[in-house]
């Protein structure tokens, strides 16, 4: 074996620190080094159980397409300290995750739960939403124009456009959208000084558990009456489909039902927001990109796809091995934890040509920004539609855009994206 089985702690430690992910140069340099020197090696960071760090595109695909062999629900689906996981088990009566959404479910339950909404999110169903999404996109382009040449594109537009699309589909009234955005930020950016829950202490190893438990219970209190309402009077919205959904012929287990609504209300928009903000970031930094897209609008889908690869908002998940498994010459033992780095896989030099260049000519652009295998993002086709509609509405009117200050990424090791994209722009 040419590479060491153990990654030096001082090398891997930044990957366990949410703040590191705000510095994209630093975090990509780390994963580039890992892909070269430790493509599949173990991290033994004090306070955490050992994790195999999976950095290669092919390895991520091999693991994540075998949901029977690599579970998402037997242990925490995301990176967590030993103390944090112990508290999760205390809060949940022995489960390893606060949430029991699609991402934490394993076969055969996962497919049964996914099927509750699967047909709604298939491409032909999503295509029927195009007119409504186009109207919302046009509204947000007008909102951008109303800023008069300067705004923070992340907070003023990108945070809110996918939020409205998704929450309207779920059936959340507009007056509650801001509350949903706040809870989403507490959840995914629990350690970011600007977005975290007030009073949260990112330095505390159990903070993520405390915050996620508060988020879960706040959502539970919010959705309980909505579930009751939709059971009494189904409306056809997503809340109705979940509230009345059957799994193996029976009602969903409560934590799974609440979590289903939570993942739709959070990941359903935050990832698209991050990717949309990333798109504007690229346009502001690369004037030739804007010029090309204006001249060749048929490239907008390729632009969208590349922004997804570039942003990779869901940066990691954790799986646990159900049985012994050999991969890349390593002996993974039953029960071992595997940190699946989508962020690394989407920059893997062995799978993606010129991975650190933002290119519109990748055909096909087979990135892992939506994941892979049975857990591939249920909302991927909606996300693409939202972004395509937005850029198709905006780009013909956008004459110029430049940075108006430093762009900033959120501090998050899990779901992350730009938290501030100040721009000067000119529109007609």
């Amino acid at each position, binding site marked *: 074996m040419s590479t060491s089985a153990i990654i030096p702690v001082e090398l891997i430690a930044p990957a366990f620190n949410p703040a590191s992910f705000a510095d994209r140069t630093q975090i990509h340099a780390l994963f580039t080094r890992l892909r070269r020197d430790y493509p599949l090696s173990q991290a033994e960071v004090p306070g955490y159980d050992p994790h195999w760090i999976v950095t290669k595109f092919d390895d991520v*695909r091999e693991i*994540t*397409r075998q949901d029977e062999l690599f579970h998402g629900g037997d242990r925490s689906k995301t990176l967590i300290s030993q103390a944090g996981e112990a508290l999760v088990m205390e809060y949940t009566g022995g489960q390893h995750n606060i949430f029991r959404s699609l991402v934490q479910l394993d076969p055969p339950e996962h497919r049964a739960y996914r099927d509750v909404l*699967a047909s709604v*999110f*298939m*491409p*032909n169903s999503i295509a029927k939403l195009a007119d409504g999404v186009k109207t919302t996109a046009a509204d947000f382009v007008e909102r951008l124009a109303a800023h008069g040449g300067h705004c923070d594109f992340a907070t003023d537009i990108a945070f809110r456009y996918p939020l409205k699309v998704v929450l309207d589909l779920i059936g959340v009234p507009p007056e509650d959208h801001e509350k949903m955005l706040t809870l989403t930020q507490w959840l995914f950016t629990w350690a970011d000084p600007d977005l975290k829950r007030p009073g949260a202490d990112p330095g505390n190893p159990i903070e993520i558990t405390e915050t996620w438990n508060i988020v879960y219970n706040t959502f539970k209190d919010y959705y309980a009456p909505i579930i009751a309402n939709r059971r009494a009077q189904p409306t056809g919205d997503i809340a109705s489909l979940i509230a009345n959904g059957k799994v193996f012929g029976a009602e969903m287990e409560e934590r799974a039902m609440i979590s289903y609504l939570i993942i739709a209300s959070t990941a359903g928009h935050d990832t698209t927001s991050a990717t949309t903000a990333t798109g504007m970031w690229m346009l502001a930094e690369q004037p030739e990109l804007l010029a090309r897209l204006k001249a060749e609008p048929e490239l907008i889908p390729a632009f969208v796809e590349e922004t997804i690869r570039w942003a990779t908002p869901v940066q990691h998940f954790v799986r646990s091995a159900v049985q012994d498994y050999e991969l890349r010459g390593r002996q993974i033992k039953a029960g071992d934890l595997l940190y699946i780095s989508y962020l690394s896989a989407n920059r893997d030099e062995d799978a993606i040509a010129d991975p650190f260049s933002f290119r519109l000519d990748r*055909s*096909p652009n*087979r990135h892992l920004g939506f994941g*892979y*295998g*049975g857990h*591939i993002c249920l909302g*991927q*086709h909606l996300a693409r539609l939202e972004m395509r509609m937005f850029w198709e509405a905006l780009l013909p009117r956008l004459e110029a855009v430049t940075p108006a200050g430093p762009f900033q990424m959120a501090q998050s090791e899990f779901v992350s994206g730009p938290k501030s994209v100040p721009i000067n722009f000119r529109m007609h």
Partner: protein
Amino acid sequence: MDSQPYRQWQCMTCGEIYDEAVGVPWEGIAAGTRFEDLPADWICPSCGTRKDDFVLYEP
């Protein structure tokens, strides 16, 4: 020569369409390859789902 019209098949996990008329050229599956002629271990080019989780797609 096969005179049957080409058909499309959809992945039940991710919605990917396998179009027999197009194949998957970048993965070595030539245009005109019938779904039943794909190898048994062929997987969805988008998500890795097994061949037997594709269904006939009739939009």
